[in-house]
């Protein structure tokens, strides 16, 4: 399978007053076309930062220090180096080719706009030309059908609108509509674009199985339940049929029953839209449900990457083993990993896991292990191998 995203040697550091925090260190990770790749790890292991680095949205004072993220665009066929892209080209990718679902569905929706407004915004940002084309067809329909006094009065405006929409449909950012959209009254000439976006929005809401989508679209976020909000957020992320959907703990804040529905939704979307999904979670059960491959991160470094069956049946890295052991099971005493998560300001030397590792060797204190392929598609970074 072709790789959609190739991350090589990615390092993210936060320059804080207390010192430099190594959020991600020398990360190599591939996301293949059409697969669901899970990232599991404890809080602070750099899962979310990996996702934000792909979108280049690392918050201040964090910085991407080195590395490369190559993105294979299915439509243009070319390979884009995301970290070297100009900011405006990057904006055209965010929400369009790569989009993200956030953890808190309530907080990710702007409280002052309706659900419909917020999803339409994605279309208005990235699908202007198509919207222009559809709006033009609609005006053409009016021009050929319109009879009577009212229609003949409105005719000049329709002609003007038609010309504007034609321009929008042809060019990427034409001058006249852009200029008019800043003028209070003339802005209204472009209302059909918003209308077309609203229609697409309703379709999108139907796609994520929201009952009565037209009515939900005019509701404000606080009027919906958590599950509905998360569906709306997913609809927003899927609006432009992205090639990569990044889901940052999308089920963490939901009830278990809603969680199951969401996982089902993710699975269906992946099959229908052929998108790759980067699924970030700290819940191993959830990861085993949805993912094709799973990667395990610890303190900003990758420990192990393997297919789901391989990882759960033959965990090789001591940290992965410890994680799987600490999953609560009925009738079994809960085992925890001894010690505390590595201090990100003063990380342990060598392998970051060695102070807590049952198999630690002297070499673990000095040298970090390179990622090695121990069997087909199973990579481990440990001195044991």
């Amino acid at each position: 399978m072709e790789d959609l995203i190739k991350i090589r040697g990615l390092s993210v550091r936060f320059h804080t007053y207390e010192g430099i925090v190594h959020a991600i260190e020398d990360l190599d990770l591939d996301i293949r076309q059409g697969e669901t790749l899970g990232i599991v790890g404890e809080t602070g292991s750099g899962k979310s930062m990996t996702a934000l680095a792909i979108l280049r949205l690392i918050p201040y004072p964090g910085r991407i220090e080195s590395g490369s993220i190559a993105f294979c665009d299915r439509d243009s066929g070319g390979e884009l180096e995301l970290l070297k892209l100009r900011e405006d080209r990057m904006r055209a990718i965010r929400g369009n080719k790569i989009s993200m679902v956030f953890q808190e569905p309530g907080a990710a929706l702007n409280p002052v706009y309706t659900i419909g407004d917020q999803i339409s915004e994605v279309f208005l940002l990235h699908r202007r030309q198509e919207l222009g084309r559809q709006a033009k067809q609609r005006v053409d329909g009016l021009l050929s059908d319109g009879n009577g006094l009212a229609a003949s009065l409105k005719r000049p405006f329709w002609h003007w609108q038609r010309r504007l929409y034609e321009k929008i449909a042809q060019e990427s950012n034409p001058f006249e509509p852009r200029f008019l959209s800043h003028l209070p009254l003339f802005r209204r000439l472009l209302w059909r674009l918003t209308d077309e976006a609203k229609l697409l929005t309703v379709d999108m809401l139907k796609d994520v199985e929201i009952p009565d989508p037209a009515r939900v679209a005019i509701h404000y976020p606080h009027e919906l339940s958590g599950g509905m909000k998360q569906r709306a957020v997913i609809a927003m992320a899927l609006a432009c049929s992205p090639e990569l959907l990044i889901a940052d703990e999308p089920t963490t804040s939901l009830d278990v029953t809603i969680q199951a529905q969401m996982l089902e939704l993710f699975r269906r979307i992946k099959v229908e839209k052929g998108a790759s999904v980067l699924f970030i979670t700290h819940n191993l059960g959830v990861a085993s449900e949805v993912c094709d491959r799973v990667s395990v991160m610890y303190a900003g470094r990758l420990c192990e990457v393997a297919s789901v069956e391989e990882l759960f049946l033959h965990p090789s890295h001591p940290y992965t083993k410890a994680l799987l052991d600490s999953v609560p099971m009925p009738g079994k005493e809960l085992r925890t990993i001894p010690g505390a998560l590595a201090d990100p300001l003063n990380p342990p030397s060598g392998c970051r896991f060695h102070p807590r590792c049952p198999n630690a060797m002297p070499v673990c204190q000095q040298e970090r292990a390179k990622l090695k392929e121990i069997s087909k598609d199973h990579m481990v970074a440990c001195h044991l191998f």
Partner: protein
Amino acid sequence: MTDWKFMARQLVKNPLSLAGIIIIAIFVVLAIFAPLIAPPPEGHLNHYMIPRDGYSATPQLPSEEHIFGTTEGQYDIFYGVIWGTRSAFHVGLVVIGIVVAIGIVLGSLAGYFGGVIDEIIMRITDIFLAFPALILAMAIVAAIGPSLRSVMIALTVVSWPSYARLIRGDILQVREEDYIEASRGIGASNFRIIMRHALPNAIYPTLVMASLDIGAVVLAAAALSFLGLGAPEGYADWGQLTSFARNWIVGPSGDPLRHWYAVTIPGLFILFFVLGWNLLGDAFRDILDPRLARR
């Protein structure tokens, strides 16, 4: 549209906010219909200049001809207060409008981008805030020459920093919200995020402060006029009318309240105007509080 109905209902429900609306509505009517309520005499060129009936210094008691009496220099008080309503709205709305605009631009730039931009803008506001507002305003008016326009410029200069600061603080808070991150995630530009996502969530405290401040600005303008730093002599302006009455606050010995009307009537107009805006501002705060349950 249900939001508008909701707001209207909230406004009317509270007796104090209703009082505020009624007071301001009365002033609006006075300002709009000033030419009908206090018709300027024939051949009077500038309607904002108060017609005078002689040149005697002693105020005249209310009479048929001058229903609120005349003040020092025989300026008609009734004409002055009615046309002064227009001056008050003019000063209050223009100054607050400009100040809010400056505050939104500078405050959101500073709050959203942070770093060096924030540092520069905020240090400039600190410099302005370091001076006592009224004294700085007096100095500015004295420097550029007393007139109503100078008063407005001076009040703008002294009041924009607090708005820039307020908006910066609110933007700073909103900036950390997930939905701002999410809008960045759908590919919105910085300008779009500020205008569409950050400001609508951060603007409410500013609107409340603006409505409260319209009264305060009019009060400050009246204070400057009282000190002789305002409109030219004879211009219809409440501050000026109180200034004319400065020597007549206490009447001749044996009859200290003889010229009460000269200072009390313009004073009451100022008082009610400021009170009206304060009540309205409180009402706005109640309505715009997002924690208030809707429906």
